[in-house]
């Protein structure tokens, strides 16, 4: 039993601190340990398990019955320090844990890390096949797409009654962002990736390998299928077939390119699409999340209207202290929102003079204050031209005194003068 290829022990990265015993334990080849029968184990448990974790009862044994944590484990690579902390926070009481045989509690995380689908260790026994290809097939089944992860996360966050959907989706995004970061972090993960690449390339056909290498080289920018054809000079049918297969193997994924939604854009599975592809922080599935933006704008505007002057840092600090956004917002995001409010003419940007209202602000610092419009706040003043039909008429260029469109026959005037 066990894989035919040499297995190297997993060493903890620099950010981790473990008892010495754990280090020693990690040095053991986990394949030497007896494996549990997953089906038997599931039968022993009285509480039902979500289907997608049924195969991963090993994790459940160590992390307890918190399905959320299980989902995190599924969705994340083990190399992320944030994830580790999250796992620790969300994990159940020690008494409910069932440590793996031969392991202490302090090292359980690393024990579970040894069982990751991406690692070569231990899962091969769960399946009756011996071929690398089928192992890869299993790996692909185990890996969820980002969208599925998002949906599952949201479904496991508490109900809308207790937390607004905005917060939930914001939290999801944040966590997904962490996941995206976590996929790229850590020196040990690069080592692991190299091993995976070596494994993967050996199991691909020539066409698939060429395409996969090309896609991988594009990292978080991805590549359009048309560009792939051009760069690889592969026939169209080969490209299509290979892409399908790579996708089914979970090596690549299709992402929405905000620049051109109609085009099929592919990226290696381990990368999160960059800002140029997604559109940025305010985009969701290729669309600008206007509701989110308007909600954040409204909250910021209400705060600013209660103050004489505010700075960007002040708004950020207030948002963190008040907890109005349960997801963390960055300074840049607040700045973008404030800039948009300036463009909406809701607030004005001024520089501090150090006197009067600017007493507490250093001289020269950029500040914002609410703009009173026409003497009555909130009511925009109509211009002279915009308050008559001609001012907003889309046909003014076609209008002439004796033409088909003329002031005498104009329907907009008719409406305007209909008292």
């Amino acid at each position, binding site marked *: 039993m066990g894989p035919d290829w040499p297995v190297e022990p997993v060493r903890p990265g620099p950010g981790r601190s473990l008892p010495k015993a754990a280090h020693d334990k990690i040095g053991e080849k986990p394949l030497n340990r007896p494996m549990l029968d997953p089906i038997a184990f599931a039968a022993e448990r009285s509480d039902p398990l979500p289907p997608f974790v049924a195969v991963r009862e090993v994790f459940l044994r160590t992390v307890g019955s918190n399905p959320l944590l299980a989902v995190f484990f599924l969705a994340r690579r083990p190399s992320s320090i944030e994830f580790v902390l999250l796992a620790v926070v969300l994990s159940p009481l020690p008494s409910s844990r069932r440590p793996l045989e031969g392991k202490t509690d302090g090292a359980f995380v690393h024990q579970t890390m040894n069982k990751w689908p991406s690692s070569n260790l231990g899962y091969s026994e769960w399946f009756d096949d011996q071929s690398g290809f089928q192992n890869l097939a299993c790996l692909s089944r185990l890996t969820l797409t980002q969208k599925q992860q998002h949906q599952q996360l949201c479904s496991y966050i508490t109900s809308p009654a207790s937390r607004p959907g905005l917060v939930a989706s914001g939290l999801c995004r944040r966590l997904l962002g962490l996941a995206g970061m976590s996929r790229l972090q850590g020196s040990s993960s690069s080592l692991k990736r190299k091993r995976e690449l070596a494994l993967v390339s050996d199991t691909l056909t020539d066409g698939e390998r060429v395409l996969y290498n090309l896609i991988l080289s594009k990292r978080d920018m991805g590549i359009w299928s048309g560009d792939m054809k051009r760069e690889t000079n592969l026939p169209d049918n080969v490209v299509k077939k290979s892409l399908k297969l790579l996708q089914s193997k979970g090596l690549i994924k299709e992402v929405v390119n905000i620049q051109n939604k109609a085009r099929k854009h592919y990226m290696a599975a381990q990368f999160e699409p960059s800002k140029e592809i997604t559109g940025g922080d305010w985009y969701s599935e290729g669309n600008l999340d206007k509701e989110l933006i308007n909600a954040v704008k409204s909250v910021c505007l209400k705060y600013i209207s209660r103050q004489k002057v505010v700075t960007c840092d002040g708004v950020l600090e207030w948002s963190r202290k008040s907890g109005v956004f349960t997801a963390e917002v960055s300074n840049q995001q607040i700045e973008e929102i404030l800039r948009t409010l300036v463009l909406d003419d809701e607030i004005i940007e001024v520089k501090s003079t150090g006197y009067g209202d600017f007493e507490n602000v250093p001289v020269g610092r950029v500040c914002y204050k609410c703009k009173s419009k026409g003497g009555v706040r909130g009511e925009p003043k109509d211009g002279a*031209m915009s308050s008559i039909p001609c001012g907003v008429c889309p046909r003014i260029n076609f209008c002439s005194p004796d033409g088909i469109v003329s002031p*005498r026959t104009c329907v907009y005037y008719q409406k305007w003068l209909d008292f």
Partner: protein
Amino acid sequence: MVSQYGFKFAIHLITNHFGKIVAKVCETLFRKGPLSLGEIIRSTELTPEQVKNSLLVLVQHNCVQAYVPADQCTIAFPPLFSNFFMFAIEIILFSVNVVRGEDGSMATVEYLALFDNIIHRLRFPKFLEIAKHQLDDECEKVLDGLLRDGRLTLKQMVERAVQGKENPGAIEAVVRESFHKLLKAHYIERCPAPEPVVSTLIKAESAPRKRGSKMAKKFEAPETIEQRVLEAAVPGEAIRFAVTAYTLGNADREAKSDDSSMVNDGDNSGKFIVILCESLIYVTKFYCTHISSMILIFLHFFTWIQGGIANEGSILWRANFEEFIRHLRHKLLVENERKRLDDGAATILSAILDVTKTVEKKVKIEKSAPLSLDSIFTEVTKTEHGRTMTIDRVRASLVQLGCPQRNFDDSYSIDLKSIVEMARNEEVESIVLKRFGSDAYRIFRLLSKSNCFLETDKIAESALVDKKETPRLLYKLWKDNYLYMEKLVVTAAKQSRFMLWKVNKPLLWEYVLDEMYHAALNLSLRLAFEQEKDEDLLHVPADKLVPADKSSEANALQKRYRRLRDVLFLMGSSLMKLDDALMLFHDF
């Protein structure tokens, strides 16, 4: 350069006020530029009598100015004289020589349509309101007469006021007093010279540019023919607001004295100097003499010999549109700052503008005349709202008004041009918001503020507009001339095309102004149409419109009347509001 709809609107105003024949002459002058009488007759295909009468009406109402092009004169006669008598001899000798053109024919007088003065006719109600509020009702009546008749002498103003009234003496006194008040406030002025000689050649650069000079030469648009004609025609400052020729522009003195008839008192030598100066002004301005100028000079000489009585019957007066526009500009500046800042800043700005009004050489000044803080403070404390202000408050408001640093001589001057530009930006932005929506509004404001080229994606990111929507909105704005676009092709590994966008404010403002003229024309036409539609209502006796009558016919009539009244009120007030915007973009 006046836009297409600007001309159309001006012609519409002339048609409404003077009829189609006069409008046809005016239109010909607009289309073909300054023309002589013969050329106008040929172009309009009207009879000479009709054209002459039309020109008389237009000149009378200050809508057309006659002049003689200087390049048609072959004789250039610099006024060289050592004393008055030598000057008189030279003039007499010269007057024998007839001014001739190159081919020996008489130099022809050309007629130039004055676009600005025609558009001012739309604002007469505003000018009357200003006179009423600044001065009194009697001044308003005198001004009303001047606006209706174009030009009047003082005698004619009196005759007009006393016509059919009892107690003409008292009325005459009131009219004279009002006249002097208007003159003191510079709301009326002497009429310009009838046919000044004007050079129509464009001046070449006077000095060659130094090579390697790092100072960029500020581009100044060449003077238009209209500007030159007006400059040549306007009387000198010494006499422009003077009641008689025997003062050096001190209208106050004239107003206080008994001016029913001027007595030849005082200094004869002073009068001699005045005539000499006047003559100098006329001759040097016109550069080569003209028969009418000669006549004027002799007239003054003659009246000097006569002993000089106030020439109430010969000096023509008209409304000084420039002063009214200046007043409206100041009003806009103050109101805008009141809205943007507070009442205190508005009070201070108003005080500054009142004090510096008299030194303004033209309406469209960019900065207010420099004033020291003490002078500003003194003026502010004289006002009702500024009485309780401290000097620190005044200083703080000056900073808010955009005047943070004093000039090198410790004086302050306000940047008025920026206030006008802000008002223009607001007006254009409100059009964009209403016409194209809030996303386009944000994009437009972003480009307007940045005042440089921005790429499409950068615009989408900065304005938080959907990246798919952004090109569509930009294209809409560009198609309607609100944006300027350039394409940039970058050839690297792959050819990339970028679209760069910018707001070109001078071009945009010209375009918006044309749209405003178009809208003003449409409003006027629709107003006329609504009046025509319910013209019969204007002839219905008032008792039939009395609400007490409950019959259905009366009800319908009342309903129609109410509707017409509301329509006229709405459209009239909209037109006045639009006129404010026209002034903002053209006159301020």
